[in-house]
């Protein structure tokens, strides 16, 4: 029983990280109908930006809420700039190109970031600074709840609440929803589509930046290829929840996190990475629109 609760706690905190990254995929997909493969590498760059800033400012060994907030801001800034640059220089020239070309470009951008990351940051793993003190806050049925699990949950719930507000209660959010429903018509009604798309990339990438800090807190080892696997899993989470759907991404993320934790705990850890793809394949074959997605009929 205690084991189970421990696994649930781990699964939820892992799942909320997946959810944050999945939101980035789902938002870009909703607005451009493309998989932004480079998203996972934006996340990697966020982690490295925080790592270097922490080293330069000597925040390495001063865990606390202040450090957490500083690093979050740094990482969000770095990721949004990068996301904006990717959108501007790689995706915008291809706005009207066939989907296959956009997909190949996205893979190209992703590989480019990974390998330039290896060039610039070095291929060896680095230790992420200690962001928050490792302490046990309270117990649930004698299972210790760690400070970073609470921090992960708190930060991601805050981020999601802000995102919800942004999408549903602001003018910009309305513009984003309009573009995702029908871009050309939105532009006829006076929405600057390119700006809205740019902003979507900024928001999605910021979420990836937040995710990178949270992962760094829980698994403090960062390397240039760290984005690939977590990115794929977050993508699976987005598809599982129904790609293009914001609540779906959150739900999918939590389900992914929990099921992965359970597989590792009760089956075998070597199948951990195959699980994500297994889920993906089953979902796509039996319910291609995901749990909360809507079916669309292809019209000629």
């Amino acid at each position: 029983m205690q084991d189970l609760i421990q696994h649930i706690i781990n699964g939820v905190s892992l799942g909320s990280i997946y959810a944050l990254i999945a939101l980035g995929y789902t938002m870009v997909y909703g607005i451009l109908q493309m998989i932004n493969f480079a998203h996972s590498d934006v996340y990697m760059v966020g982690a490295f930006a925080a790592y270097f800033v922490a080293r330069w400012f000597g925040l390495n060994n001063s865990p606390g809420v202040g450090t957490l907030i500083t690093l979050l801001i740094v990482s969000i800034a770095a990721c949004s700039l990068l996301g904006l640059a990717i959108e501007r220089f790689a995706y915008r020239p291809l706005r009207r190109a066939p989907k296959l070309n956009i997909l190949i470009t996205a893979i190209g951008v992703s590989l480019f970031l990974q390998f330039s990351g290896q060039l610039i940051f070095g291929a060896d793993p680095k230790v992420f600074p200690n962001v928050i003190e490792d302490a046990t806050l309270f117990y649930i049925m004698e299972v210790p709840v760690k400070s970073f699990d609470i921090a992960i949950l708190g930060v991601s719930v805050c981020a999601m609440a802000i995102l919800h507000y942004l999408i549903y209660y602001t003018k910009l959010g309305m513009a984003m929803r309009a573009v995702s429903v029908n871009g050309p018509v939105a532009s006829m009604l006076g929405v600057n589509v390119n700006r809205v798309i740019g902003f979507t990339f900024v928001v999605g990438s910021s979420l990836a930046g937040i995710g990178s800090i949270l992962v760094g807190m829980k698994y403090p080892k960062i390397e240039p290829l760290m984005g690939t696997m977590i990115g794929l899993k977050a993508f699976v989470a987005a598809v599982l929840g129904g790609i293009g759907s914001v609540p779906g991404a959150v739900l999918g993320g939590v389900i992914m996190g929990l099921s992965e934790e359970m597989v590792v705990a009760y089956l075998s850890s070597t199948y951990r990475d195959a699980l994500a793809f297994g889920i993906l394949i089953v979902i796509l074959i039996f319910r291609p629109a995901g749990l909360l997605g809507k079916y669309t009929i292809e019209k000629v």
Partner: protein
Amino acid sequence: MKWFKNPILSLIAMLIVGLIFNFSVNAYIQITILFIMVNCILALSLNLVNGLTGQFSLGHAGFMAVGAYFAAYAGLNWSFGSPSLLAFQFFLYTLGGGILAAICGYLVGLPSLRLKGDYLAIVTLGFGEIIRVTLLNIDTLGGARGISGIPSFPEYDPVIFTSFFTSYIFASIWLIICFFFLWRIMQSQNGRAFLSVREDEIAAEALGVNTTKAKVRSFVISSFFAGVAGALYAHLTNYISPSSFTFLQSVNVVIMVVLGGMGSFSGAILAAAFVTIAPELLRSLQAVTGVDLRMVIFSLCLILIMIFRPKGLMGEKELTDVFPWLRLGRKKA
């Protein structure tokens, strides 16, 4: 050059070129040439799915792994014994690797080819990874250690039929089979169906093409040749492990297809040669700068080609369209 259209004559021409290589260049260049041929088979086979049928597969390395593991396991464990049958044995196991990969391709393709575009790419990626993780967990196949000591192609004679030349013969036979099989299938009814699926799936369906069948066929053929290429790869390197067949290997093949032009046979061959040789050339650069620039350059190429030449360098053109003098002997239509 009319006789290029005849497989036997092209094979003989290739073998003569190979014989020259056998005497004129050193072992390093020889092995590079063999890898070019393996990559040509890979690129040609993926070109069938990605370029000519318009489906985007990212799991080619998985099928390559199936072929490689079959050939390696069979070559090590089920020997025919008699050395005179050795050549036959190699051929048979390579074929077996291809067939097993084709069966996997069928099993993978049947459910996943209902999906389109991005989803298909991700699912094929997923299947590729699942094949890899499964191999990682099968202990009889070595798990993460892989299989080592895979027999090379036999050496019959230290002067002419050296290990290089026999490998070269095997590789050329398969390359010729692959090229002509794919080339001719594209001239057939099946090939037309593939093209129609690429151009407009709904229109093709309306005209009575069974699009699912066409896609699965193209996928199975492509997996078959990927398996063959994997088997050749296993015999050439003598060592395989699951880490030889990662996502990056699939991407490598995709780069060849995109670079060469999606849908162009000669483009795929040229790009395969380029992608194999470029890292070797960059190696001297790496000695100067101390870093591996290969993938950075390739990925940048990929982005720039997509932006500036969306159909790949050659587009759908063949070499004979670019240089008409290569077409001597063909009657003007």
